[in-house]
């Protein structure tokens, strides 16, 4: 079919899904795989209801969304499915723009290539992203904003990029991980340097000034949030603190919930700290190692978030998986793509089934679902490691054709490299 029409067609399809009354939507809204307490639509509606009936939404301990969302949905536009569809479309569009910026193509080209249609469909048709967005989980917005940030950054629009990242961080504090690579991206180019790494050449001072600008935006947003939550700081504890202190132990595909369900109270705060620090610890190494390609660094960090963050939902690994399509050059160097795929397949099938076995039918106990979430963690980890490996392996290039008789050897080398350490 004609490549050019893919984006509009898919967007129309998505909008259609939004307007049609789908049977299972009510179940989706309650599903623990695709809404966490931080992103669930029910809680958003509850918060809006409390706001209308002038009860402080952040008092109840059931509402964790950012005040910005609250204000947007309470004043400007009502929370209707169309908005989620549009946000998906925006995300896909941003992904497309990122791709073009990375390939150095002109941004407003009419015709699109197969790769681009693949990218678009990889975002819109990705079940990990589609279902949360059908369940009206706010993680859709977080993803679109992340992509917008990356888009602006790779197109070299500092102010809008910084504003976007500030907004993203306000929605989900974990996005702070992406701040550094985005700053780096702003001072360098998005073009793929994976094959030919070179030292970081952007100016540090510029990064500092950009950081200052970001702080400005961020503080403004925080101030706005405080004003919206009529001057109290309680929202910060309720919305940001939630992802640090894990007050709500609702199960999700992530690793946190069961760990802290079973944790002894005396060690709780300590391990909460460890898990959070464990997320932060990845920033610097990745950024240093991939200083030549900050976009790829951001991609890896998104992968980290999609594996280890608290209140994980399928939307988080979904973003990572969709973004893989941005880097076709590394696909050949993935180590075990098929294994990763199978792991994801198993996880995606196991999670809902085990959840039903435990919670609805009462045949299995919590360990069933815990096992499924472990599989999910393995899948995420495998994907992460694969991507990291490929991103570096590509720099070594390939064995030449002419090298007779060595081909097989070299082939084995490829297969051996992970063990070829000093």
């Amino acid at each position: 079919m004609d490549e050019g029409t893919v984006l509009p067609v898919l967007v129309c399809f998505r909008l259609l899904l939004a307007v049609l009354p789908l049977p299972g939507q009510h179940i989706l809204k309650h599903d623990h795989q695709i809404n966490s307490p931080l992103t669930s639509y029910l809680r958003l509606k509850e918060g809006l209801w409390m706001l209308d009936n002038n009860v402080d939404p952040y008092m109840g301990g059931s509402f964790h969304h950012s005040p910005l969302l609250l204000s947007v949905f309470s004043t400007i536009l009502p929370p209707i499915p169309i908005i989620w569809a549009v946000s998906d479309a925006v995300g896909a569009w941003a992904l497309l723009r990122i791709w073009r910026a990375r390939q150095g193509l002109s941004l407003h080209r009419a015709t699109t290539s197969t790769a681009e249609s693949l990218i678009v469909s990889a975002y819109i048709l990705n079940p990990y992203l589609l279902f949360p967005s059908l369940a009206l989980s706010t993680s859709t917005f977080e993803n679109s904003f992340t992509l917008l940030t990356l888009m602006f950054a790779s197109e070299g629009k500092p102010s809008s990029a910084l504003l976007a990242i500030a907004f993203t961080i306000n929605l989900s504090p974990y996005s702070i991980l992406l701040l550094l690579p985005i700053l780096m991206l702003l001072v360098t180019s998005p073009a793929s340097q994976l094959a030919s790494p070179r030292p970081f050449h952007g100016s540090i001072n510029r990064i500092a000034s950009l950081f200052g600008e970001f702080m400005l935006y961020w503080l403004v947003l925080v101030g706005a949030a405080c004003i919206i939550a009529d001057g109290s700081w309680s929202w910060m504890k309720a919305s940001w603190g939630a992802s640090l202190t894990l007050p709500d132990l609702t199960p999700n595909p992530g690793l946190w919930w069961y760990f802290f369900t079973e944790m002894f109270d005396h060690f709780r705060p300590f391990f909460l700290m460890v898990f959070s620090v464990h997320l932060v610890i990845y920033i610097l190494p990745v950024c240093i190692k991939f200083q030549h390609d900050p976009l790829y660094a951001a991609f890896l960090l998104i992968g980290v978030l999609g594996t280890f963050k608290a209140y994980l939902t399928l939307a988080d690994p979904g973003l990572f998986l969709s973004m893989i399509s941005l880097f076709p050059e590394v696909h050949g160097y993935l180590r075990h793509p098929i294994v990763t795929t199978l792991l994801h397949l198993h996880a995606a099938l196991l999670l809902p089934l085990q959840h039903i076995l435990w919670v609805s039918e009462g045949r299995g106990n919590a360990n069933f679902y815990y096992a499924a979430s472990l599989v999910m963690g393995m899948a995420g980890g495998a994907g992460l490691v694969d991507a990291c490996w490929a991103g570096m392996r590509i720099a070594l290039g390939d064995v030449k054709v002419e090298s007779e008789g060595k081909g097989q050897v070299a082939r084995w080398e490829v297969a051996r490299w992970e063990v070829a350490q000093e």
Partner: protein
Amino acid sequence: MLRASVWISLAYLLTPSLSLENYKEDLRVQPLRDGRVSTAFSFVTVLDGVVPRNPTALEQPDESQHYALFPLTLGQILREYAITELHLTLNAGKWNYDDWGHPLEASVRTGAELWAWMGASEVTTVDERWSGLRNALSGLFCASLGSLDSRRTTSPVVAFPLSGSTPPFAQHELRHASLPSENVCTENLTPFLKLLPCKSRAGLAALLNPQKVFDADWHGMGVHVIWKEGTGVELKLTLQAVFNPARSSAGKRRDWSLQSLFDRSIERSCPVASSSSVSVVLPEEVNYQITPQIAHVEGSAIYDLSSSSNSTIPSNIAMHWPSEHSFQYPMPPLQPLTPLSVKRTLHGTTQTRGVLSVSITNNSPQEISAGYLEIIPALLTLWMHTLEVETNSEIRSDLLSDLKYQPPSRQPNGHLSPSMVQAVLTIPPKSTLKISVEVNKAFLKYTEHPPDAMRGWELPGAVFFPLPQSANNISSSYDWEMIYTPTLLVDLPTPDFSMPYNVIILSCTLMTLIFGSFFNLLTRKWVVVEIKE
């Protein structure tokens, strides 16, 4: 200064608190239409001219208490925590409003319910005194009232107003808590009887035979302390039981007598009781006989048992239906005996969510407006935005007015207080109102689960109460009393309780696996090794 304080205290000792005490007891027996017999004892002690302790003066030594009839143990608790009004009920069973009508003593909530009005004071806060009161009472009644902590405490002032009069000193606060899972048995009755001047040795209390009382279909006891301006402090001990002669008797007859109900009889009256009487509510139909015969007034026969009266004590009061061979249960359809009949259920079979739905039927010919109170422990999250009010399958949000919702709030001790929903319902005549709201069930830490985790948690019943006669509902003079709905069972999803170490090991292993391989990728050197075959 030492001396001074000493003299102050002595002055307190010297102050004579002249209190005239007065003790009344009575028993009301009412045959019910389904063959059961409802009995209600009430023992009232009045302390004339005594005022509740002023909480603002808690640190000064208290005036000395001299009681002849009032139980000192209870008096001490009241004074110690400066309680103005106290209500404690311990009930077992589910009161069947439709067939039994309104109970003779209104508060029939299943399990334990405690509420108290206290004056606010900065010497010791209301909450401190509330917890002290809980522990003292649980010690006194051998009930697990200590667990009525901040996870169950609210202050629903509209539903549970001061039934006495408000003392002039500090303004007052309410604390209310209920524990549905408390089951009531003999070890609660014994201390209860000890509070009576004549224990269970003389007077009506002599009838209270644990074996029989605790074999009844429904039983409950209550302690009510209120202060009335002018009269003074009034202590009312109540005990209700609903017996089922048709079950226990051989011939499945509904005949009853005090002897058959309690397997005891009143030998002598309590000497200190100023009045002591048994009153039997006579049924509408005529084919019964009651012995001993007595001239009865407005549908009830009253027997005076007090020692002052020169009439001899009737050894046994009995009622029987000679005409019927065995009791024939009334055939449906039966009109419920209360103007309102309420059904409350928690739908949904998964352990994560459900729908709490209440349906109120107005049996009376005119519109009734009722107060509605839900107190939901924080293990259930109410989705208030899904609240729907419908009558005969059409949404009628206008029937639910001035809704007050108080979400659970985190207490200083880290627990979440219950959430409270309060509203006024207007139920059209001869129709049914349905309220439904979605709920989510909480996932708790494995330490927060009770030992019998797979059983679930009891959800206290809702309360429907008549509104204070205000301008709008003078018309509905239809009198009815507070209605409690039965408790529900919520089964929460449970983790595996044998897992902590395994989980730590597994999760950590996975994390370190990924962390380690990632770390190695980043830090180790790439080498091209050449393998010659």
